[in-house]
């Protein structure tokens, strides 16, 4: 029985891990460059001191606090060392079982760690992303076994619906509802897609999850395939993430070899195989209908909805599309139950959310917090505030489709609804802290240039509108705008928002509208008036 095989692998690997007195975990994510050298130096030192039977050195996924990287974690004791260099290897190995290396030690009481609530990131930075046994020892694939042998597809659909999980890709559509629609839809075969085309500049949650816990994503996808009746899955991942692609490929291969993907998974009647599709650098392919066309080998042009992909998606068949983080949430919802999961977060925005905290902030990195946490706590407690005496001006969420939350509204709880009310969006989870030295006009011009370049050109409002809005914004940037330009800007934003075909165009004006709402004076200051002329005169 495959189940027994899993238990055997788990037991054997646990026995192997328990042989060692010390485990040294080294972050091997993209966010900790130079980790190869550290791994090599630590390995060499252990061999030199003939400690290979006592000390196990492992590469793991992202530990979150990228600004203090490269990070090294010593277990037992959970001592975390920051900014480790290969030269520190001797000292670290010598200190095992003695006094820790004070100069590298990162306090475990740091609010960055204590204020987080890790659910999706629970295993990130704790297990080797390329080791299936590691994932199994950490409790991996228990959710799939439970789903396959103790639940019917309808039980799973009910479980996901009751949990209140909403899509983590940005729009926040209820996941349970989407799954039920696909499960009910007529047509076969059904397809399943994992959207890992993280195009939003300033966001790297998906990259980190793919690099740190690829098996969890595959497990979530397999549970989903069982629930909706899909037989073929695709992971559409950006070509800009070579490490993530490499680890995913390996995870798929290992899962196939151990009967966790492929024909009659774990001896059940579920057949499900997964393929990787590489994106090729088009932001619009994050939109689901464009993504489907891209998987079909065409230009990534969106099409009007309905019909929604849940009814007519890939090759005209019912298709389930969810974001990486949504799938990564599934195993814990299944094993812990919907009630446990629903207790986290707020009433309408449940669970936890992963954010990429970047910009002018002390602790940059990847965090996971319960929904509903006020922005202020994220920025000042977890993020540690702004460095170098800068004052906070705004927090940008949702990237080129989102908006800015000004400092005055920092007590806003982070939920889908509250961010929408402020004209921003949750987005996939990019959070960029902007300090007082930045010009909002400059930032929105940057975003509009991005949208202009990334517009696929299919519909006129987006293709022409984004270019015209960008032209107007450049006038503001050069302080040559007039009152009429401001009126035109607002009118155009409204037009592009309401008449564009897909989400890219519809949300492209968001940064401008949000900046006009909270930082209007900055735009007014850029307007050429008679008064300005006088001021210029000596």
């Amino acid at each position: 029985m495959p189940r027994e095989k899993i238990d055997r692998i788990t037991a054997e690997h646990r026995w192997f891990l328990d042989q060692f007195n010390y485990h040294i975990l080294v972050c091997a994510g993209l966010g900790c460059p130079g980790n190869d050298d550290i791994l090599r130096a630590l390995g060499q030192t252990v061999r030199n001191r003939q400690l290979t039977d006592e000390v196990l050195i492992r590469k793991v996924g992202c530990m979150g606090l990228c600004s203090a990287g490269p990070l090294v974690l010593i277990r037992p004791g959970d001592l975390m060392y920051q900014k480790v260099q290969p030269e520190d290897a001797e000292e670290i190995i010598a200190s095992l079982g003695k006094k820790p290396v004070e100069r590298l030690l990162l306090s475990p009481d740091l609010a960055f760690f204590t204020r987080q609530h890790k659910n999706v990131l629970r295993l990130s930075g704790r297990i080797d992303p390329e080791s299936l046994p590691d994932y199994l020892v950490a409790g991996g694939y228990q959710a799939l076994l439970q789903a396959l042998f103790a639940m019917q597809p309808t039980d799973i659909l009910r479980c996901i619906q009751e949990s209140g999980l909403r899509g983590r890709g940005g729009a926040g559509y209820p996941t349970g509802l989407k799954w039920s629609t696909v499960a009910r839809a007529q047509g076969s075969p059904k397809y399943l897609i994992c959207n890992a085309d993280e195009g939003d500049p300033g966001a790297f949650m998906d990259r980190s999850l793919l690099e740190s816990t690829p098996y969890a994503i595959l497990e979530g996808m397999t549970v989903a395939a069982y629930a909706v009746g899909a037989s073929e899955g695709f992971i559409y991942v950006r070509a800009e993430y070579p490490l993530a692609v490499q680890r995913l490929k390996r995870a798929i291969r290992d899962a196939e070899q151990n009967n966790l993907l492929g024909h009659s998974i774990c001896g059940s009647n579920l057949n499900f195989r997964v393929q990787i599709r590489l994106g090729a650098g088009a932001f619009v392919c994050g939109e689901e209908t464009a993504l489907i066309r891209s998987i079909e080998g065409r230009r990534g042009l969106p099409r009007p909805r309905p019909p929604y992909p849940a009814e007519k998606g890939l090759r005209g068949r019912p298709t389930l599309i969810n974001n990486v983080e949504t799938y990564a949430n599934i195993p814990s919802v299944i094993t812990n139950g919907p009630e446990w999961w629903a207790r986290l977060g707020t009433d309408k925005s449940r669970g936890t959310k992963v954010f990429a905290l970047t910009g002018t902030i002390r602790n940059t990195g990847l965090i996971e917090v319960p929904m509903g946490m006020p922005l202020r706590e994220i920025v000042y407690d977890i993020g540690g505030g702004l460095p170098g005496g800068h004052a906070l001006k705004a927090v940008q969420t949702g990237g080129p489709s989102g908006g800015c939350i000004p400092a005055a509204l920092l007590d806003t709880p982070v939920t889908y609804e509250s961010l929408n009310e402020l004209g921003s969006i949750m987005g996939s989870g990019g959070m960029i802290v902007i300090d007082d030295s930045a010009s909002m006009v400059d930032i929105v011009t940057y975003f509009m240039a991005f949208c202009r370049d990334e517009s696929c050109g299919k519909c006129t409002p987006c293709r022409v509108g984004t270019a015209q809005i960008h032209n107007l914004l450049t006038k503001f940037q050069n302080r040559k705008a007039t009152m009429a330009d401001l009126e035109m800007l607002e009118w155009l934003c409204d037009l592009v928002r309401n008449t564009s075909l897909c989400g890219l165009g519809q949300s492209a004006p968001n940064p401008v509208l949000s900046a006009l709402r909270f930082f209007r004076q900055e735009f007014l200051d850029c307007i050429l008036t008679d008064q300005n002329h006088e001021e210029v005169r000596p």
Partner: protein
Amino acid sequence: MPADTQQKPVDRRWQRIIQTMLRHNNQSDALIETLHTVQETYGYLDPAVLAAVADRLGIPPARVFGVATFYNHFSLKPKGDHTLVICTGTACHVRGNDQILAWVKEQYHLTPGQTSADNRLSLVEARCVGACALAPVILCDGVLTGKKGYKETTAIIEEWLGHAS
């Protein structure tokens, strides 16, 4: 069927591309995967190879060209000996990568997508490499450098180009 075998590039590299297409049963939806392999093997999308790919997958050359030009990742021109990638994601923008871009333009007379006349350096602008916590980020021949100021970053580029051969 027209006899087009003479035009087809027949070498080892082409064999790799045939294998990618075979893996997808020569279906038309293998196009993007195939173009990735072409770019990996040849360094860019060679027009002769594109024509051969179109022929083998049974799709019009115009569609192949359309896909090749739609996606930023694909390049129809050969790259230089070295590639400098400058990330222009939001976090890198806020942390001043636009100044680095301006510096490269002044120093090496290159704008994103261009290759220097001596074919030594190609400049590429990346939308976001996903290392935002290390902003501003540059990649010198794939090696990532981050968390450095304007002066340090420009010095790193100069040193890299001085040493790189």
